[in-house]
């Protein structure tokens, strides 16, 4: 029997104050999906990074905007989509510096996208300029 697909959506104002709610939302779903505590923590952090980027970069700290997180569970994967309507960007054009280079240039950022890629099995951006930007992240369930 194919397992029932379940969808969860959380939409909050674009304020870093709401990252706690986003993390709690993701944690509940990841636990419900049967991920291990370590995998739950990975997903919590990846989605936090994605949403913090939207708040800071896509919306430039405009708190009247909204961030949506949609989670879809089937029996095999947890898919998380982070959706914004802000200014898109070209992820392939972002220079990925090593940690020592970031530190020697006194940067305080530049690790978020790398973290998402390390923590999730798949990470894709899809930008529809002026309409919406969607970041899709997938974690596959390890079968026991």
């Amino acid at each position, binding site marked *: 029997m194919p397992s029932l697909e379940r969808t969860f959506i959380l939409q909050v104002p674009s304020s870093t104050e709401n990252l*706690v709610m986003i993390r709690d939302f993701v944690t509940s779903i990841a636990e419900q999906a049967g991920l291990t505590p370590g995998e739950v923590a990975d997903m919590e*952090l990846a989605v*936090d990074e994605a949403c913090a980027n939207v*708040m800071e970069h896509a919306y430039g700290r405009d708190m009247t905007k909204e961030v949506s997180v949609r989670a879809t569970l089937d029996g095999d994967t947890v898919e998380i989509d982070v959706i914004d309507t802000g200014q898109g960007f070209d992820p392939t054009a972002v220079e990925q510096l090593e*940690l020592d280079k970031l530190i*020697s240039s006194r940067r*305080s950022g530049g*690790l978020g996208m790398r973290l998402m890629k390390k*923590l999730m099995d798949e990470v894709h951006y899809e930008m529809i300029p002026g309409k919406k930007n969607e970041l899709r992240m997938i974690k596959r369930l390890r079968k026991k």
Partner: protein
Amino acid sequence: MQDGLTILSPAGFLDAHTAPEFETAVEQEIEAGHRKLIVDCQGLTYISSAGLGVFMSFLEELRESGGDIKICGPSPKVLQVFEILGFPAIFDMLPDVAAAVKRYAECPVKGGE
């Protein structure tokens, strides 16, 4: 306690919302002339890259003037984030404050041995 060491103890979660406050705390120590910082992470339940950024942005400046940031006490969950990003190769990471104090005595600036 050794002279001139300063302990900072961020607690709870250190994310994009709370990192600015921690950044200000570090800045104030540096402005007050304190160069040898110990960040005791024992009370931290969660850290994201915004929190890590605070550690990154002040390290060069501190090391140039004979100081350092030694990180101690992270829970396994918090340590895991430091490790994924390669922090232990660049930062001294110790189990607790006592070990961080000892490390300052042996080696004030990591890599400066």
